[in-house]
């Protein structure tokens, strides 16, 4: 660990760990929520076909359009067809979108594409890779961000600008894009099988804009994000937000179909003010196979809070060099095997064990990685 990476990481750890301690102490019910969430997600992983079908039926019932994509190319085709041939497409930091190469495929199709999560926007500007699943620009110090924005976006900011001025500079740029965008693409923290609702947690407000202002909202996520009920989806939102280090989250967004109204004689009309179309693209890309592997399936319980990164000395040392993006750290060493059939990152696990101590849904990450190591040794 050296230089700017060490500075950025140490500042993050010093901010994150005490804040998390306080959250977990102030809201003790979160521990019980996490246990319930583990049970709920486990029940879905055991019957993925059943819950996927239930989810698709519920989405249709709410006026949305469900899609199933078995791999990267199918997902690119489905999303490409919905987006059409031109227009501005906004992303709200969907890791599954990065996994599938959606940004690149839409750019190649002639769209203007912008990431709207601040960290991911910085990564896009820098033509870089995310270094953390929740904080993709973790490796960029404030000074580096100032230099980047000065060079690529606004000459009035600099490495010496305040944190507030840097954020305002991006906000000003993105506001023009929100009002002109045709499609907003999000991921999902959870998808409720019983209602077809997509639940998204955020603090910036960009997801709220992406899901409401453009006329088409596409949620792209893995089948692992399905939970049995709407209630369970809220559990996931709360547990993820808390363990990502900000609780309560500023926003929890729920989308159940396109915008609608029943204000005239109780007759339901689609659309109303918000999007006229809602699409849910559920992606397999290795997840179903993983759900059938008794030694790997627990990896599908991951809620992408990113805590395991901060408890891992291999991540501290290698950063984003450890696993191919977007999945890094200990969870990335598991997920690279699932979605990219890449077992090599697991071979560097030192079984430090902090990852399993901090994991809110109690994934025994070292034991999963031991299995991936075993697969790797046979290649």
């Amino acid at each position, binding site marked *: *660990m050296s230089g700017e990476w060490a500075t950025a990481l140490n500042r993050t*750890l*010093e901010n994150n*760990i*005490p804040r998390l*301690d306080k959250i977990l102490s102030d809201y003790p019910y979160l521990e019980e929520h996490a246990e319930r969430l583990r049970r709920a997600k486990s029940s879905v992983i055991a019957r993925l076909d059943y819950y996927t079908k239930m989810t698709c039926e519920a989405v249709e019932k709410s006026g949305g359009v469900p899609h199933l994509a078995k791999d990267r190319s199918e997902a690119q085709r489905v999303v490409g067809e919905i987006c059409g041939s031109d227009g501005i497409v906004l992303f709200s930091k969907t890791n599954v979108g990065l996994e599938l190469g959606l940004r690149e495929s839409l750019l190649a199709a002639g769209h203007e594409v912008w990431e709207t999560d601040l960290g991911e926007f910085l990564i896009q500007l820098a033509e870089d890779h995310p270094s953390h699943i929740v904080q993709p620009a973790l490796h960029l110090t404030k000074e580096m961000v100032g230099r980047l924005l000065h060079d690529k976006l606004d000459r009035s900011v600099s490495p010496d600008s305040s944190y507030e001025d840097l954020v305002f500079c991006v906000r000003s740029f993105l506001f023009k894009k929100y009002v002109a965008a045709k499609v907003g693409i999000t991921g999902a923290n959870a998808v409720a099988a019983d209602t077809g609702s997509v639940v998204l947690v955020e603090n910036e407000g960009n997801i709220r804009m992406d899901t409401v202002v453009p006329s088409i909202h596409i949620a792209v996520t893995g089948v692992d994000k399905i939970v049995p009920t709407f209630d369970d989806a809220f559990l996931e939102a709360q547990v993820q937000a808390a363990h990502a280090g900000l609780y309560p989250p500023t926003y929890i967004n729920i989308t159940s179909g396109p915008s609608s109204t029943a204000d005239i004689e109780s007759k339901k009309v689609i659309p109303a003010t918000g999007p006229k179309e809602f699409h849910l693209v559920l992606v397999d890309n290795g997840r179903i196979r993983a759900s059938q592997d008794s030694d790997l399936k627990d990896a599908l319980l991951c809620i992408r809070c990113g805590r395991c990164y901060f*408890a*891992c*000395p*291999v991540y*501290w*040392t*290698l950063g984003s*060099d*450890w696993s191919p993006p977007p999945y890094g750290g200990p969870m990335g060493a598991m997920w690279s095997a699932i979605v990219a059939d890449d077992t*090599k*990152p*697991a*071979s*560097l*696990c*030192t*079984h*430090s*064990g*902090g990852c*399993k*101590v*901090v994991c809110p849904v109690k994934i025994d990450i*070292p034991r999963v*990685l*031991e*299995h*991936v*190591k*075993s697969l*790797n*040794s046979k*290649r």
Partner: protein
Amino acid sequence: MDYGKTQKQLYMVRDVVYKNLLESYMPLPVDRVACSGWAKNIPRSGPTVLYTSYMYQLGSVFKSYAKLLERFSGVKFASRFASLGGLFVKPNKEELERASRVLNNIARLLTASGTQVAYLHEEEPYSGALLLELGLMDEFHEYGAKLFDFFKDRDVRRLVTVDPHTTNALFRLKEYVKSDIEVVNYLALVKPSNGTGRFVMHDSCLYSRYLSMGSGIRKTLEGAGVSLVEDRMVTALDTSTCCGAPVESMSEDLSERIAKARAAKLTSVCEDVLVACPLCYQNLSPYVTSIRDIAEVVS
């Protein structure tokens, strides 16, 4: 990350370690007489056996295992190395002397707590922990079955381990191999009454986060009079980390960088570092001025 290189190292270690273990119960040809010289006064047989798995005697060798193998790399490397019957890896003299002090103190602590131990001397086998930690599970299970047969043939009923890697490997083997041989770590048996010093504790990952021994070890140390300095960001269960030793076989550079960073965090809390594992001792030593093992500070 150069995964081409790490894969090559993995295959090299796998082929050589596995072959040697099946042939000789050792991962490499080593001077076993020198390694067992510390135990002159301990009987050769008995129901309870002190099992070192050579971790204290050969810590530096295990730490740089891949580098050692590289010296012999080349065409048909594995068979060449395995056939080097005349070659013995000589343990470092100072390391052996230190191992002797540590292991004799452990034996005395056990005797004082009412546990009489035997020791298998130059017959002692290696545990196979390296196979487990590299994820070579098929090889680990196959060797493990052979290992437990070895102990059974010698009427061993209880194994008293002295390090975390061996302890963890045996517990993991017992999930797979049906054996009524009991496994217990010495720290669960001893009750030292004399301890000195003020330290920052570098927990063994395996003891603290896998075998749930961390708080028990702290109680034992504090009960003996050893003072431990704690820091939320450095020594807690979720903030303390590995020393980097287990990844040495895959990447020496990564291992050293982890060790250096860990040593810097530990010494920011206290200059005197206490460890519970011979590999932690080896990996952190280059970056720490004052480092001791638990068995060097209690009696």
